[in-house]
């Protein structure tokens, strides 16, 4: 199971810290939605395309990202044209395409693991609100591990229900999957605690003082 769209590379975009790329995405999204102008949307679209080409990602990658969106873009632009005029249709379509391409650029140039690390660092600032970064990290890594496991369980249960002629029934699939899931949760929680996992002490650990 491929779990990331990341394309390896060494260009400037790959070396930028993930946090700054996310901030740039948020800023661009806010700007484009706050200032609905055709020239701005077209300029941004051209700039994003230039970023792709400048990073050596090429037209093939751009096409791979745009192709699944073409239907939605066409429907949205069509609705705009019908309701307003061609200019606003072009503006909305260009704006959305630019945003989606830029967002995909962030995903393409950042490893999921780096993105998660950036996310965990950002969580540090939420500490005063009672968020414990260590617990969030545990949940994140558990979920990443469970997704393929669960995919396998779902496939297994569907296979078993196919033998009973029930493969089309969502209920006959969902119930055994969820029950197995809940049993698994108990076992895993026990296993984690049996290995002495402390859900991260809230107070910082004493450092240095304990050495003889």
């Amino acid at each position, binding site marked *: 199971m*491929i*779990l*990331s*769209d*990341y394309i390896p590379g060494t260009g400037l975009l790959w070396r930028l810290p993930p946090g700054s790329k*996310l901030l740039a995405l948020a800023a661009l999204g806010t700007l484009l*939605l706050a200032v*609905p102008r055709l020239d701005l949307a077209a300029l941004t679209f051209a700039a994003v395309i230039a970023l792709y080409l400048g990073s050596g990602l090429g037209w093939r990658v751009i096409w791979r990202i745009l192709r699944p*969106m073409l*239907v*939605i873009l066409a*429907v*949205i632009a069509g*609705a*705009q044209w019908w*309701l307003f005029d061609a200019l606003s249709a072009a*503006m*909305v379509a260009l704006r*959305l395409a630019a*945003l*989606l*391409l830029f*967002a*995909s650029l*962030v*995903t393409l140039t*950042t490893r*999921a693991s780096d*993105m*998660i690390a950036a*996310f965990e660092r950002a969580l540090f600032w939420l500490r005063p609100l009672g968020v*414990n970064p260590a*617990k969030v990290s*545990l*949940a*994140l890594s*558990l*979920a*990443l591990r*469970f*997704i393929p496991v*669960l*995919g396998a*369980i*779902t496939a297994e249960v569907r296979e078993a229900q196919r033998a009973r002629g029930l493969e089309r029934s*969502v*209920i006959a699939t*969902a*119930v055994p*999957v*969820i*029950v197995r899931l*809940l049993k*698994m*949760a*108990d076992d895993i*929680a026990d296993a*984690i605690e049996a290995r002495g*996992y402390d*859900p991260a002490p809230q107070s910082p650990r004493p450092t240095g003082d304990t050495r003889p």
Partner: protein
Amino acid sequence: MSTRDIVHIALFAALTAALGLFPPLTLPAVGVAITAQSMGPMLAGALVGAKRGGLALALFYVLVAVGMPLLAGGRGGMGVLLGASGGFVLAWPIAAFAIGWAYQRARFNPGLPGELAILAVFGIGLVYLIGVPWISAVAGLSLSQAFIGSLGFIPGDLIKIAVVIAVTRTVRRAYPALSQGR
């Protein structure tokens, strides 16, 4: 929060991802597909309550945002979350929390009319309350146009409510320990 809570959060995030494996049914409307995935927030809220359910869907959102292709049809990444259906995905954690809150208030036994009401108000109403203005902002449509465009999904949502009620009731019978834990 106990270790078990953390494991539950991770598992229901993963379950929502697994629900995306069912092939989606795309209507030629606004481009929002009917997927089994939107049962994720309903199941999480109804089975493990507000805190764990809401956090499970928040975790799912984060996993999609960092680029995991977990949304139905193998979509993922920031691009999809900013697209037309992004508002619905954003609404899921809030809906899961609200559903869990309502189920907890009823001690996880709201009775059939109660369950119907909770899932319709929070599982459909609240999700549309966030998702429809999002479509209208992204697609540049008026609120009423975006709403009319989304009406086609209501029948599918009603079927999902029926499935969720059937599933949660059966799971509770098969795993009674669930309602005894907090």
